[in-house]
C-alpha cells in the first residue's frame, strides 16, 4: 500500500479520472486542484477556481471526461476540458443551503446533488436550451443529505441523510431515458418515489453504497453501525454494531465484502452472508509495522505515573497509515465487483492506495469472498 501526503489541510473530497493518472481534490478551500501522476510524484497541473465557498463534492465522469463540483456556495459547476483548460458551466440548483455531495449517474447523462436544504437536485442537460436543468426530490427527506450513490440502472439513487435514514429514490427523468426495467427494489419508479427506507439504526448516515449488481445497499451510520439491506419482496436488513468510532465512508469491493473507514483512521473489512442475512467483521486492514519495543527506564515509568496515572508504555501516536479520520474511499481498479485497488483520503491531507491482493496475503484469516 502506498501513502502520499498532499497537504497539511484536510482533503475535503477527491475524484479520479478514467485511467487513474490524475486526481482532482479540494484542499479544504474554494478551489479544486488537479494533480497528475509523475512517476512516484504528483505534480499540480490545474487549479479550478470558480466556487465562492468550500468545495464539498467532486465527481469525475470517466467516459465523457467532465468534472462536476458542488460547494457551500449553493452552486454546482460542470467542467469540460477545452484544449488544456477546464471551462466551468454553472448549474442552478435552486437550493438555499450548502450542497454536500455530488455524483454522476452511471450513464453520465445526469448527476445528483445532496444538500442541506433537505432535498436532492437531479440535474440533466436540456439540449434545446443548452442548459443544465434540475428537478427536486423533497419528500420525505427531513434533514441534510450527506451522501449519495447511483444504482447501475441509472435510475435509482441511494441517499443517506441526517434524519437517521438511508433511502432509495427513483430519479427517473423521462426527458433523457426510457422506462427502466423492474429491479429487486420495485417495478414502479416514477420520479421521487421512495423504493426503500431504512429503520432500526439511529445516527446520521455518513456513507452509502450500492453493490455492483445493485441488489444490495450498505450504509455507515454515526452510531458506530454498518448495515446492509438486500432488495426483494420485503427488503432484508442486517446491521452490525462495532466497538470503534463511527465510520464515515463505505464501499463494496465484491458482492459480499465491504470496506469502510472513518474516525478510527484505518479501513476495516466487513463480510455479508446473504443466507443468514448477517453482517460480520472481517478484520482491520491496516497492519502497522511493529516498532521495536524499547524498555522503559524506571524514571520514565515514574514520569508516566505522574503525568498520566498509568504505567502503560504505549505512546500517544497513531500507528495507522492515516493520521486523522478517513473521509472518503474510492475504487481504483476492478469496479465494485472485483476491486483490486482502492484509495482513501482523509483529514490529514494524505491519500493512501491499498492493494487488495497484498492485504489478503499480509493478513492471515482475512478472506474476501
Amino acid at each position, binding site marked *: 500500500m502506498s501513502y502520499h501526503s498532499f497537504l497539511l489541510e484536510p482533503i475535503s473530497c477527491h475524484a479520479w479520472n478514467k485511467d487513474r493518472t490524475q486526481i482532482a481534490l479540494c484542499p479544504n478551500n474554494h478551489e479544486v486542484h488537479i494533480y497528475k501522476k509523475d512517476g512516484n510524484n504528483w505534480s499540480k497541473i490545474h487549479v479550478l477556481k470558480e466556487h465562492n465557498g468550500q468545495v464539498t463534492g467532486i465527481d469525475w465522469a470517466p467516459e465523457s471526461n467532465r468534472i462536476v463540483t458542488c460547494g457551500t456556495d449553493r452552486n454546482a459547476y460542470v467542467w469540460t476540458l477545452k484544449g488544456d483548460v477546464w471551462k466551468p458551466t454553472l448549474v442552478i440548483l435552486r437550493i438555499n443551503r450548502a450542497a454536500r455531495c455530488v455524483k454522476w449517474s452511471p450513464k453520465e447523462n445526469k448527476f445528483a446533488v445532496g444538500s442541506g436544504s433537505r432535498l436532492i437536485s437531479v440535474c440533466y442537460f436540456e439540449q434545446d436550451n443548452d442548459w443544465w436543468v434540475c428537478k427536486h426530490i423533497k419528500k420525505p427527506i427531513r*434533514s441534510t443529505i450527506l451522501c449519495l450513490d447511483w444504482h447501475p440502472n441509472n435510475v435509482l439513487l441511494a441517499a443517506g441523510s441526517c434524519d437517521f435514514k438511508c433511502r432509495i429514490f427513483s430519479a427517473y427523468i423521462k426527458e433523457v431515458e426510457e422506462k427502466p426495467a423492474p429491479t429487486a427494489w420495485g417495478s414502479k419508479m416514477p420520479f421521487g418515489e421512495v423504493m426503500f427506507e431504512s429503520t432500526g439504526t439511529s445516527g446520521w448516515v455518513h456513507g452509502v453504497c450500492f453493490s455492483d449488481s445493485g441488489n444490495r445497499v450498505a450504509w455507515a451510520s*454515526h*452510531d458506530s453501525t454498518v448495515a446492509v439491506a438486500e432488495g426483494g419482496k420485503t427488503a432484508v436488513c442486517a446491521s452490525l*454494531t462495532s466497538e*470503534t468510532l463511527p465510520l464515515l465512508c463505505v464501499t463494496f469491493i465484491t458482492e459480499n465484502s465491504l470496506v469502510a473507514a472513518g474516525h478510527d483512521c484505518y479501513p476495516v473489512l466487513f463480510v455479508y452472508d446473504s443466507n443468514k442475512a448477517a453482517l460480520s467483521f472481517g478484520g482491520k486492514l491496516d497492519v502497522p509495522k511493529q516498532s521495536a519495543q524499547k524498555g522503559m527506564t524506571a524514571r520514565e515509568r515514574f514520569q508516566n505515573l505522574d503525568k498520566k496515572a498509568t504505567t502503560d508504555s504505549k505512546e500517544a501516536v497513531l500507528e495507522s497509515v492515516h493520521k486523522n479520520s478517513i473521509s472518503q474511499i474510492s475504487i481504483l481498479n476492478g469496479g465494485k465487483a472485483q476491486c483490486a485497488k482502492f484509495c482513501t483520503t482523509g483529514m490529514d491531507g494524505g491519500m493512501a492506495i491499498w492493494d487488495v491482493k497484498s492485504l489478503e496475503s499480509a493478513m492471515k484469516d482475512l478472506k474476501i469472498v
Partner: protein
Amino acid sequence: MAKNTLSSRFRKVDIDEFDENKFVDDHDEAADQQGPDAVEIDNLIRQGDMMAALHIALRNPPINSKNPAIKERAQAAVLRVLTSFKSSDIEPAVKSLDKNGVDLLMKYIYKGFERPTENSSAILLQWHEKAFAVGGLGSIVRVMTARKTMTT
C-alpha cells in the same frame, strides 16, 4: 397607544413548535414495557444471586415509554443491582452479557452518572471501565446518539 402594547401573552408562545421544518421523531408504539420487575430483583439480591439480578434488571428496558415514572423506577432498580455487586464480580458479569446488553448497561451507567449519590460514582466508574473494555468506544457513541432513550 399605551394600552395596545400592554398585552405580553405572545411572549409565552413557543415559536419553535410552529416551525414547519421542525424535526419530529417517528413515535413507535410503546410496547408493553413496564421496566424490570423490582420485587424479583430485590429477592435475587437478598439471595445473593447477582448475575441473575443483573440479567433481569437489563430485561424490558422502558425505551419507548412516555411515562417518566417507569423510567425512574427502572433506573433505580438497575442502580441497586449495580451497587450491590462485589468489585471482583463485575468483570465476569459484563462478560456474560451480549452486545445489546452491554450497550444497554452503558446507557444505564451514564444515566447513573447524571445523578450521583454517595457511593454511586465510584462503583459506576468501575462498571464503566469493564463495560468499556468489552463494548469499546462504539458503545459510548451509541449512548450519545440514541434517539429512543430511556432517560427522557
